[in-house]
């Protein structure tokens, strides 16, 4: 593949508390703010708490999920008195870190999340972005024993990207689990912090002129999601994730494998194409009607890159 050149990174943001009860990111950002981190090497760094009101009450959100508010359509919706607290905040964050799609936007936003699912450390991207794939590969090499994976949400277009990191020129989330919401685990915090530090190191090396050789990386590409069996009248769950599926994120799920166990003890089996499950039993997804997501696994080759010299 041909060598690709990118401009240097000058402004990056690290955001935490997009969901107020996902505590690793909240504390990583708070520590950066406490130590007045605003410059790291050649990078101007902005640590930011995205949803301070939800952090204060340790809830995912006040009115609506902030991390679904950043589509082009929602960002251009005029605010009214009845606009949700999160939509208002999304407009503020778009002004601060964006505007999305413009030249003034942050070069990079890394948004920090936790999940109750047993997903290890995931880089979540909306598109194939050579910068981000190089960055992931670098972090994987630096943290060889950590379970680090890449998820491509496979969103149809940038205008439909709904997450806070989509306002940047290069945006991604780091999602680490399992951790209960409202709990701060040292092992999870340390893993996330190390990944953030390596990400910033990579950016500095990139800016300094390092050539990063082409390589390949495994990516899990979102295909579809599966809801829980529910009572047709009340919508209440009638089954729980099967013990053979629970905690087995990224292990191949084959047609005929158990996925749910009803409250009366029956097994419900998966029917469909063999795929890789993730976000298995994420607390926040019960209300979104998602028991787990399914992905195809692809190996993506990426070209050598280096900084475009002015």
């Amino acid at each position, binding site marked *: 593949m041909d060598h690709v050149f990118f401009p240097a990174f000058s402004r990056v943001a690290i955001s935490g508390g997009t969901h107020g009860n996902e505590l690793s990111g909240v504390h990583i950002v708070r520590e950066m703010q406490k130590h007045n981190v605003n410059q790291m090497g050649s990078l101007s760094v902005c640590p930011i708490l995205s949803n301070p009101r939800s952090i204060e009450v340790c809830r995912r959100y006040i009115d609506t999920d902030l991390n679904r508010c950043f589509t082009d359509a929602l960002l251009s919706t005029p605010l009214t008195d009845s606009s949700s607290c999160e939509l208002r905040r999304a407009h503020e964050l778009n002004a601060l870190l964006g505007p999305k799609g413009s030249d003034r936007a942050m070069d990079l936003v890394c948004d920090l999340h936790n999940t109750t699912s047993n997903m290890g450390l995931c880089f979540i991207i909306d598109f194939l972005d050579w910068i981000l794939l190089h960055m992931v590969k670098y972090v994987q090499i630096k943290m060889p024993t950590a379970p680090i994976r890449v998820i491509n949400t496979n969103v149809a277009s940038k205008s439909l990207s709904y997450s806070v990191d989509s306002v940047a020129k290069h945006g991604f989330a780091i999602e680490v689990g399992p951790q*209960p*919401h*409202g709990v701060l685990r*040292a092992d999870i915090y340390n893993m996330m912090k190390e990944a953030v530090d390596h990400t910033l190191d990579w950016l500095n090396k990139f800016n300094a002129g390092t050539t990063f050789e082409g390589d390949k990386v495994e990516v899990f590409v979102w295909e579809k999601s599966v809801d829980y069996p529910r009572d047709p009248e009340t919508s209440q*769950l009638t089954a*729980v994730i099967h013990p053979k599926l629970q905690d087995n994120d990224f292990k191949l799920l084959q047609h005929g494998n158990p996925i749910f166990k009803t409250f009366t003890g029956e097994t419900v089996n998966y029917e469909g194409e063999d795929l890789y499950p993730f976000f298995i039993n994420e607390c926040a997804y019960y209300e979104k009607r998602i028991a787990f997501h399914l992905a195809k696994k692809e190996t993506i080759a990426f070209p050598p890159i280096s900084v475009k010299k002015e």
Partner: protein
Amino acid sequence: MSSYNNNSVRLNAATKVAVFGGTHGNEMSGVTLVNLWMKNSNEIQRKGVETKPFITNPKAVEKCTRYVDTDLNRAFTAENLSAPGGESLPYEVWRAQEINNMFGPKGSPEAYDVIFDLHNTTSNMGCTLILESSKDHFNLQMMNYIKKALAPASCLVLLNEHPLLKYSTSRSVAKHPVGLEVGPQPQGVLRSNIFDSMRVIIKHALDFIELFNEDVEFPPCTVEVFRVLERVDYPRDANGNIIAMVHPNLQDCDWEPLNPGDPMFQTFDGKTIHYQGPGTVYPTFINEAAYYEKQQAFVTTKRETLVASAVKKS
């Protein structure tokens, strides 16, 4: 009415039994089990005893939150139970009065005989039974029965009769209150293994009550318990923000010995804070989400063996 005869306790039959779920609205095993049993209670019925499944905090359950105004499981104080104000009271205080009317009054002869209160914890406590009095021989015998029935699977007993740390639980309206705490499970999440464990504990508990009511005498026995000693908070700064996390060596090590000098907390920049107590303790409720606001990183306990008298229906 109980009487003692040659170290044997005689008690009336346990005919009024309740199972509470949703005392904390985001502790899903109890919410789910009680909802199931409210639709079909066959599984929890036993000869001679009517077992009532009951959602104690429906507003919190609806919002999938621990509580709406105040923690229901701390609300059953004498002051709250007699407070005037009706529906203008904080929701959980008003609700505590309702529950006390339905299942109590606390301390009276009309109160329910046994109440099981179903809870989950984010701590790695496994199956835990919570005892409020070391002199409740009926409960001690029931817990001994449950532990033996579950063996070799573990089921430990936590005794909280510490004068300052004990609290007024929803189950405390009954003559024999029993807390069931099963973890680890995140708040708002339903895990199959945790759900099944809780269901099996209730099954054995109700079997014990049925046997007791059928005149089975349970001979004297010993019960190992972990007695609550003290609450340990996170290190905090002058503004009350936590400045360290439970140390990776302590995280998930509920019920394992913590010796003086062992790592206890880890600051955000990686320094270790060591346990400085006078002797070995057994920590539990390590890193329970709901206790950050109650200034508790974990509680320490000591191991004790209690002797339970024989119990028989009078």
